């Protein structure tokens, strides 16, 4: 189980290939993964870039913790979270979650659990730079 915070651009497919290269061949029948990428629009506005603030120690603990929870709840061979922080541009990957298992139901359910928990409760705060200036997304009506 690996949870990584990254201050610069990462390639989700390379991260997945790297983890998989370390797994024993022939044991995992299933890998489900999710990649969240920065869009250039949100709540009707053009978004030029964003800045993702986090609470380093708490964020790391939170991500480690949801990996542990997933491994307790489903039959997993491995799981992975990679999350960006700092300045992010449209098209950049923001988050990757993945789960490996013998069977696909466990892989899908764990992968989705990781991203849903992360979105709901991981300590990240997003400030967007739009046509009309900077805004914290938690202050945006409708978000």
């Amino acid at each position: 189980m690996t949870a990584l915070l990254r201050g610069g651009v990462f390639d989700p497919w390379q991260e997945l290939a790297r983890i998989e290269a370390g797994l024993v061949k022939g044991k995992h029948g299933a890998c489900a993964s999710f990649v969240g990428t920065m869009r250039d629009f949100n709540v009707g506005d053009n978004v030029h870039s964003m800045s993702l603030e986090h609470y380093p120690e708490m964020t790391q603990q939170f991500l480690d913790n949801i990996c542990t929870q997933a491994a307790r709840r489903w039959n997993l061979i491995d799981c992975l979270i990679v999350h960006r922080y700092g300045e992010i541009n449209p098209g950049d990957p923001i988050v990757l979650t993945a789960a490996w298992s013998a069977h696909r139901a466990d892989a899908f359910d764990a992968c989705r659990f990781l991203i849903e928990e992360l979105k709901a409760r991981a300590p990240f705060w997003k400030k967007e730079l739009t046509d009309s200036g900077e805004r914290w997304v938690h202050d945006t009506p409708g978000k």
Partner: protein
Amino acid sequence: MQLKVKFFASLSEQIGFTDTTVDVDKPATVSDVWNLATGGQTMPVNTLCAINMAYARLDDSISNGDEIAFFPPVTGGNA
């Protein structure tokens, strides 16, 4: 007892700083720490808090050496 206090995102912009230290001389809650650290500023609705990097409630008791954090609702990713 001495406590580290942290503020994040829009909350730190409103309060005017990101870090401070407070001294408390009697049993206290997270709410009390907010009042001491901000000089009694009004707490925005939906403010979240953590004790030692774990989510907590405003009426939880604090202990010597704790790190208390206040932050707005989290907003990871955009998908």
